[in-house]
């Protein structure tokens, strides 16, 4: 499977014949171009058009993050998979309110089911999460009753609040007190971790969309009109609980992330470079972890699961098979 590359230091990207390399003050690091399909840039880098053209040719997507670790944009090479047929169906499902609402509900249902799975896991391991489990259970019924995407978004917000209210019980560390979700800038360390991890999920989903016939600009739960990419946000909803939140709990329970991995910046709290590396290492490990897939009949990685989700969406759009979100069975 092709790899993702993460760049934290300063340097220059270059193309030399048919290879890529990254030049820093310490030396050169060659990047085998056939082995990678995305590059994540956190550090300060120089690059030129020749380099970008090479990425286009090799269909490699380049994601940029600013100094604070916020997503700033992607070099999304020219589309290499075009199907007018798929694009029309994708747009049709957006423009028809009932069809759009149906897909939006399926995404929220999937996301909620995965949140429940995460909570149940810790509940079964002695954390008393009865209250959060109950409130989510009650709220889930309201997903289907939502008469518009706006109402649905509000229900989703309530589910997320109930879910986040369980985080302190699960984490149970005085250095990592969670005071409800806030962002830009995150006001506590848990918020910093959630923001960082969610961003990773958005870019991973975008990278996978690039390898399908779907247009990343047309989404259903999120509104299409106001930004460049949004379908990745829809798909990310399904995976945030099982990827990001599980990584956060895992890293904290093993003291792999400590308060020294954070810093005060911009009037908020953010992961520092060391902290980001710890997170990214675990993230990559997770994405490569494989699980047995019953319908496919062989092992698939979590990264592949994102792709399968997109295939299912494609089949829904062309009227082949009703979309059903992936729900983790742990």
């Amino acid at each position, binding site marked *: *499977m*092709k790899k993702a590359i993460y760049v934290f230091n300063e340097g220059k990207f270059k193309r030399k014949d048919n290879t890529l390399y990254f030049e820093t003050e310490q030396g050169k690091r060659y990047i085998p171009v056939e082995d990678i*399909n995305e590059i994540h840039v956190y550090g300060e880098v120089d690059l030129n058009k020749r380099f970008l053209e090479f990425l286009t040719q090799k*269909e490699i997507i380049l994601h940029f993050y600013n100094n604070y670790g916020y997503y700033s944009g992607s070099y999304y090479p020219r589309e*290499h*998979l*075009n*199907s*007018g*047929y*798929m694009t029309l169906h994708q747009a049709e499902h957006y423009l028809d309110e009932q069809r759009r609402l149906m897909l939006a509900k399926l995404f929220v249902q999937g996301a909620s089911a995965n949140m429940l799975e995460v909570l149940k896991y810790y509940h079964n391991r002695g954390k008393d999460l009865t209250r959060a489990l109950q409130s989510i259970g009650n709220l889930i019924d309201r997903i289907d009753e939502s008469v518009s995407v706006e109402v649905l978004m509000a229900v989703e917000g309530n589910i997320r609040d109930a879910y986040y209210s369980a985080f302190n019980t699960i984490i149970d560390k005085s250095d990592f007190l969670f005071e409800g979700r806030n962002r830009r800038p995150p006001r506590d360390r848990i918020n910093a971790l959630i923001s960082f991890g969610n961003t990773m999920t958005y870019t991973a989903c975008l990278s996978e969309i690039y*390898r399908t*016939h779907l247009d990343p600009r047309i989404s259903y739960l999120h509104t299409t009109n106001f930004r460049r990419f949004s379908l990745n946000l829809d798909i990310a909803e399904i995976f945030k609980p099982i990827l990001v939140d599980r990584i956060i709990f895992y890293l904290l329970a093993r003291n792999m992330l400590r308060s020294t991995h954070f810093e005060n910046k911009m009037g908020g709290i953010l992961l520092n470079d060391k902290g980001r590396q710890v997170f990214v290492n675990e993230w990559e490990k997770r994405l490569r972890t494989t699980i047995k897939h019953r*319908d*496919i*009949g062989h092992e*698939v990685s979590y990264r*592949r699961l994102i*792709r*399968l*989700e997109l*295939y*299912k969406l*494609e*089949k829904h759009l*062309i*009227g*082949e098979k009703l979309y059903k979100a992936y729900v983790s069975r742990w």
Partner: protein
Amino acid sequence: MPETEFQVNGTLIWYYYICKRQVWLMAHALGPDQEDNNLYQGRTIHEFSYQRDKKEINLGNIKIDLVRSEKGRLIIGEIKKSSKFLTSATRQLQFYLWQIEQMGIAACGELFIPEEKQRIEVILDEEARLELETATKKIIDIVEKAAPPPAQKIKWCKPCAYAEFCWA
């Protein structure tokens, strides 16, 4: 103006003898997983074999892998990864010969299988012309359907680059 500018091509003939669903998907520009290992291997073999020959010749709606002239004969070649899909490969090449014949060019056909160091001669006979005529009509019927034929497990599913799409 006809409603579609759709034209049957060699790839669709190839797929027709393997899986009808692939025919529909390919015709709607829904290509398979580009990172699939088999696909990648095929592309590599194609790129690095027979580098001295003329390759990838576009003639109308057909794309010929390789054209070579031997002892005054014009050879139309199709490069394949293995001899596993011989029926498909033969029909595909016969389709090219048939198309070329209609353009008034006489040529011989050969399948090139570099990995097996094999060359297989393919001829266009009356049986093949009739078969291709039927196949072309049936392909148009498949492609004009609103949705792809449902996925069915066959023995070719295992190494297929569409498998995850079909079974997800």
